[in-house]
């Protein structure tokens, strides 16, 4: 992708600032231009992007980012905050009808992934203790009924079909069947259709008119481009959708369509399809989409957390120590504690762009280890903490006993400390900024 990291671009725009100490209007404009390109490359609809930029621009000028030392990051933060707000920060669940069964109608363009999603949703609800029945209302696509039947058996949920008769009749039949057989949730799979096909849109309206439907969910391919708003608006205008399901989010798409749809319909994104398997269905995480759109990992969260836990004062002392190469085990302890405060280590590594969760599996960063390491350092004398060279075998044995660990564990901590010290030396030499 031409645009892999918006933070870099924005920082580049503001790079000159260090010497000047104030942002010009032109620089803000340039920054907004970069954000606009990022949004467009992510397939955010152009009108939505324009509105969005206007809002961000306003906030960026209004807030005190001009005097900030890190205007680039501040702007990114505003963009990110606004994105998440627009995407909807609250998770929206699938509704339940007051009079059962709950009826959920799936609709969307051809190839969005409705049939597969019916199976996944059935499975998802079954795991929550519901008894779902999936219903074949796609009477056009060859073998669509077959496909749904296979998918439903994989999902281990009920299946209902009446061949290729009128879909409203099928839906009615399904509700009767559900009532008689104890199904509390009915999921209607409908044929894929173009929003401009009035005849087929009428078919869905007929179903809606004749049946009490709790949820009308628009299923949208995450890879959709500019047309997403036209499609979503047409379906919403015609049917009054209650929510959106995004499919194929396991691809490498930036997923800007999600933002566009939310902005245009203001209907919640309820679920996301994230894989080929029947269990690959997740709740919607707006922050993840925001970061995808901007083309970066959850760097911001990391920055924020780091800011909260590592005070400026501590940072300054640490920087000094690195320069003077006097980073000792006491400092190592402080560092470890602040990492602890940042929360789950696994989550943290996941926030670093490029660090995949898969790789993490091998690394096994568990909190118990952090606690153990802290205990080991606490069991050292002040002199030992200041000078690790003192740590001979008998001292290590004493520390192991004191901390309830083994000598090997103590060795590991000392080794880790030495590695960290070595790493920091290199940081110091390069004059690079620490990640804390």
């Amino acid at each position, binding site marked *: 992708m031409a645009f892999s990291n918006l933070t870099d671009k924005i920082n580049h725009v503001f790079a000159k600032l260090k010497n000047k100490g104030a942002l010009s209007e032109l620089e803000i404009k340039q920054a907004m231009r970069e954000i606009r390109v990022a949004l467009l490359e992510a397939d955010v609809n152009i009108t939505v992007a324009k509105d969005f930029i206007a809002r961000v621009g306003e906030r960026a000028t209004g807030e005190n980012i001009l005097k900030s030392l890190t205007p680039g990051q501040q702007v990114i933060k505003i963009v990110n905050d606004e994105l998440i707000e627009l995407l909807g920060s609250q998770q929206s669940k699938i509704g339940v009808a007051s009079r059962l069964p709950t009826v959920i109608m799936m609709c969307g363009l*051809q190839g969005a992934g409705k049939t597969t999603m019916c199976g996944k949703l059935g499975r998802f609800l079954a795991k929550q203790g519901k008894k779902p029945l999936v219903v074949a209302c796609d009477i056009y696509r060859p*073998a669509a009924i077959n496909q749904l039947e296979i998918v439903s058996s994989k999902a281990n949920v009920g299946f209902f079909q009446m061949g290729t008769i009128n879909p409203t009749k099928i839906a009615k039949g399904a509700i009767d069947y559900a009532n008689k057989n104890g199904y509390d949730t009915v999921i209607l799979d409908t044929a894929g259709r173009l929003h401009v096909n009035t005849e087929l849109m009428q078919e869905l309206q007929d179903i809606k008119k004749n049946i009490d439907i709790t949820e009308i969910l628009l299923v949208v391919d995450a890879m959709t481009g500019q*047309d997403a708003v036209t499609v979503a608006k047409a379906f919403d205008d015609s049917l009054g959708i209650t929510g959106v399901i995004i499919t194929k989010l396991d691809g490498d798409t930036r997923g800007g369509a999600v933002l566009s749809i939310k902005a245009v319909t203001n209907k919640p994104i309820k679920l996301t399809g994230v894989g080929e398997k029947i269990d690959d269905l997740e709740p919607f995480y707006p922050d993840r989409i925001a970061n995808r759109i901007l083309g970066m990992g959850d760097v911001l969260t990391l920055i924020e957390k780091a800011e909260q836990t590592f005070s400026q004062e501590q940072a300054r002392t640490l920087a000094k120590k690195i320069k003077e190469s006097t980073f000792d085990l006491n400092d190592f302890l402080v560092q470890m504690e602040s990492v602890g405060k940042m929360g789950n280590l696994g989550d943290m590594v996941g926030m670093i762009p490029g660090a995949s969760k898969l790789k993490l599996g091998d690394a096994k960063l568990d909190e118990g280890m952090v606690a153990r390491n802290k205990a080991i350092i606490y069991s050292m004398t002040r002199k030992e903490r200041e000078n690790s060279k003192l740590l001979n075998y008998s001292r290590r044995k004493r520390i192991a006993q004191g901390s309830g660990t083994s000598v090997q564990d103590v060795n590991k901590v000392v080794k880790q400390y030495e590695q960290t010290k070595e790493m920091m030396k290199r940081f110091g030499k390069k004059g690079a900024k620490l990640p804390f």
Partner: protein
Amino acid sequence: MGLFSKIKEGLKKTKQSIGFAFAQLFKKGVFGEDFYDELESILLSADVGSATTQTIIEQLREDMTRDKISSADKANQYLKEVLLANLYDEQLELTTPSVILIVGVNGVGKTTTIGKLAHNYVKQGKSVLVGGADTFRAAAGEQLDVWCSRAGVRLIKHEEGSDPASVVYDAIASAKSKNTDIVIIDTAGRLHNKKNLMEELKKINRIIEREYPQAQQVNLLVLDATTGQNAVSQVEIFDQAISIDGIVLTKLDGTAKGGVVFAIAGEKELPVYFVGVGEGIDDLMPFDAQEFVEGVI
């Protein structure tokens, strides 16, 4: 209905949505910043993409300034020329025997395209055999079955969950023994970032190369016109895996314009061979760059 009117009809809805604003601009006959801004919006709305849009606009600006264009007709002509220059206009020349391998991400319309494609070649008097190598998706075989009987062509398929490579192997063997002109291979939809699925595709590709070297092999990537900039990534990665020869752009009968093919053409010399404009068996047309460009603006 002729080819021309059919594709035109498919693209008509497209035109209505943005054509108006642009026509207004032309009427004004002033080609300043407003004009280029509006043009930018139009191209971006058509999924042409940010970078390619800039390239196109710069080219047009240069040409128009150089030749001091001030009439609406001339401007329109220049714009079309620039757009055409940013596409590959080339028809698929098929020699027999040949194997057409159909690939793409999930839900782009591969199976439907195969039905239409088979029908298209049958109409031209060719014998066609379809190999159903999508053994993954539920009922993919049944769906293909329906299309093959509509087109009146033979289908080789195995059970769901079986090895797709063996289907390809059998299809080629059968085509050889019966002197079939064209073999069309359906494959499972796969997201291009799934490593193992792309490996599977490479294997299928290798089998065709190895088992049927005397046949012309054409690897077609099916793209959904509704897709945004991710299509560029799809082309790139599928091409890396099995070397794509051309594109089929489907679902052009909606309101999406498929402008991402400009962005694709900017990166790779890949022609669009066919466009899909509906769900009927005749709704597959050879790509016509001229008409496509008119659809976009």
